[in-house]
């Protein structure tokens, strides 16, 4: 097992492909068909372009605050790519590429960041939970879904994502511990992008790695190079298999880098050294993956240019469509509080409707 070979307590990080795109660990190179590789890359690229353009839209005042996944597309795609359609994902809030891979329409993602709950009406057949803003709480939900799968005797698994900052929250630990206690089919993924807003990873904990926190919960854990899609995929696949066989949960720390700000309301230049940032940019998963694909002969600059153009248009059109969605009708803000309106809600809704009809603004 990879988790036996790579001991986080010994500081051993699992890597297959280095930042130039070269395979340095052939033994553990996963077998991914070319078609899937292309799909993975294209999803990363689409997510990247969506985020880059979204930043512009936001600065143009056309979009509200959002959390870009710039730099983390590798982790996000490589982990979810190791699962099947029937598997579940319990999100934090920075998993754009994961959502795209799963089939959450970009339109929904834009609706959500534009302040419309319709964006969280995730399509039928997509087992993705909505964004969980209170950090760490999504881990316990994931465990609950895992327990329901055990109960129903289904062999689906549940991924859950969290950031390096999130590992300091009580529910992070409660979640992995609970999962261990019940041996649930969960895979917990820490997207260690080095920063919790302005707080660097080293301030979060005295532990040398985040992966080793799994040891306290008694579950297998591993630290991987998150920008290396092969290592990430391999580690996740092993964890998924383990979970499907009923052998319980795994904790994976994926080391990556948050190229952009925490959210658009954040200015990283305040707390990040320029030289450090430049250095970290070279670890970009898109750079190395592209290099690998070109080297393998299944991608080229022309395909790159075409893809970029195609994605640019998709993003542009999708965003414009969302922009033209009007205000939310009054009924919608009441309708989903309970299955049926309580007498109080009905009265409040009717009264306000009447008041508005009377020409009041």
């Amino acid at each position: 097992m990879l988790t036996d070979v790579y001991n986080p307590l010994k500081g051993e990080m699992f890597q297959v492909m280095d930042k130039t795109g070269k395979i340095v660990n052939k033994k553990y190179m996963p077998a991914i068909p070319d078609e899937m590789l292309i799909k993975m890359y294209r999803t990363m690229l689409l997510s990247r372009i969506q985020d880059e353009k979204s930043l512009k839209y936001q600065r143009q005042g056309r979009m509200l605050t959002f959390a870009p996944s710039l730099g983390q597309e590798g982790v996000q795609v490589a982990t979810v790519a190791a699962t099947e359609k029937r598997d579940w994902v319990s999100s934090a809030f920075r998993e754009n590429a994961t959502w795209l891979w799963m089939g959450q329409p970009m339109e929904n993602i834009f609706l959500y960041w534009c302040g419309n709950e319709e964006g969280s009406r995730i399509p039928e057949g997509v087992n993705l939970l909505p964004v969980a803003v209170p950090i760490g709480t999504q881990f316990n939900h994931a465990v609950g879904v895992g327990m329901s799968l055990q109960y129903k005797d289904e062999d689906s698994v549940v991924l859950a994502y969290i950031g390096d900052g999130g590992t300091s929250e009580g529910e992070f630990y409660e979640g992995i511990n609970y999962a261990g206690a019940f041996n649930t089919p969960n895979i917990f993924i820490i997207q260690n992008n080095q920063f919790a807003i302005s707080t660097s990873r080293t301030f979060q904990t005295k532990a040398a790695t985040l992966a080793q926190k799994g040891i306290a919960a008694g579950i297998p854990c591993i630290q991987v190079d998150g920008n290396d899609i092969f290592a990430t995929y391999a580690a996740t696949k092993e964890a998924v298999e383990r979970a499907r066989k009923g052998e319980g949960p795994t904790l994976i720390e994926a080391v990556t880098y948050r190229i952009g700000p925490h959210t658009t309301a954040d200015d990283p230049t305040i707390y990040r050294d320029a030289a450090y940032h430049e250095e970290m940019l070279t670890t970009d998963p898109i750079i190395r993956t592209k290099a690998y694909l070109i080297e393998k002969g299944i991608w080229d600059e022309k395909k790159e240019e075409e893809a970029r153009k195609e994605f640019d248009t998709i993003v542009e059109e999708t965003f414009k469509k969302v922009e033209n969605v009007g205000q939310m009708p009054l009924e919608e803000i009441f309708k989903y509080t309970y299955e049926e309106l309580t007498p109080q809600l009905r009265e409040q809704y009717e009264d306000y409707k009447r008041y508005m009809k009377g020409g009041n603004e």
Partner: protein
Amino acid sequence: MAILNNIEALNQGLTQAMERDDTILVFGEDSGFEGGVFRATKGLQEKFGKKRCFDTPLTEAGIIGSGIGMAINGLKPVAEIQFQGFIFPALNQIMVHAARMRNRSRGKYTVPMVIRMPYGGGIRALEHHSESIEAILAHIPGLKVVIPSNPYDMKGLIVAAINDPDPVIFLEPKRTYRAFKQDIPDEIYEVPIGKARVVTEGEDITVVAWGALIPEAIKAVEDLKTRGINAELIDLRTISPIDTETIIESVKKTGRFLVVHEAVKSFGPGAELISIVNEKAFLNLEAPPTRLTGFDITVPLAKGEHHFIITPKQISDKVEELVKF
């Protein structure tokens, strides 16, 4: 028909519900093997197995958070919080997720979960074992909050809560868990959520109470008869959503209103009821709508708790005051 106390009635309700629907799971700290510290879930693990009734690690957030996950994927979790005083680590999951998941996902993901816990004081316990925070919970949109006062309602309301498509907080007045018994039907039945019950009819004043104060209020009503006053006592049963109709119909008849609750006075459930009475029955009032409540303090430990407890005499005296207004 069986003569059962509140705990036994609750247990019977859980058992009968679980017999009919195998998506119902019951769990909490010490709820499985031992059947809960008050034995509310006694025998369930024996009968239905560890998969359906089990103990959990000591984490309220974990219990409730995982319950939410289960409910999202089609199960009906009945989660126990050992004492209402320990609900606070789980309040985040309750407020922000259980109550909001339907709204957030526009109805795709819902949380038909029951969260049950012993609540209220009067048992001379350690700190954190005597809370009455129904107002805090009732203030959260998306939640329902029920408080049964007698074995019939305990059974009927737990069944209704389990069948409710929304998250229901089920508060059990621990003071009266075993304080009396009642003859209740053997078969399974539901008591509707959102419906109060008129305990005694009267035309002089409407008195609303719930939980452990119902037996006290009943004593007060008897005492008031000897003072020539006929009080209409209403057991609210559901704190949220309130059965406004029953209350207002009563106040229009009597013209006077008193709400009695153990919970802290300021910003308490009484304030909500009085507001409703003012909004809908202002012109019918012959005396100011009033609340008789606990103090704005932490429930005292055993030595001071008797000050905090509301007695039948306090209730009758207050009623008399209002009738003479």
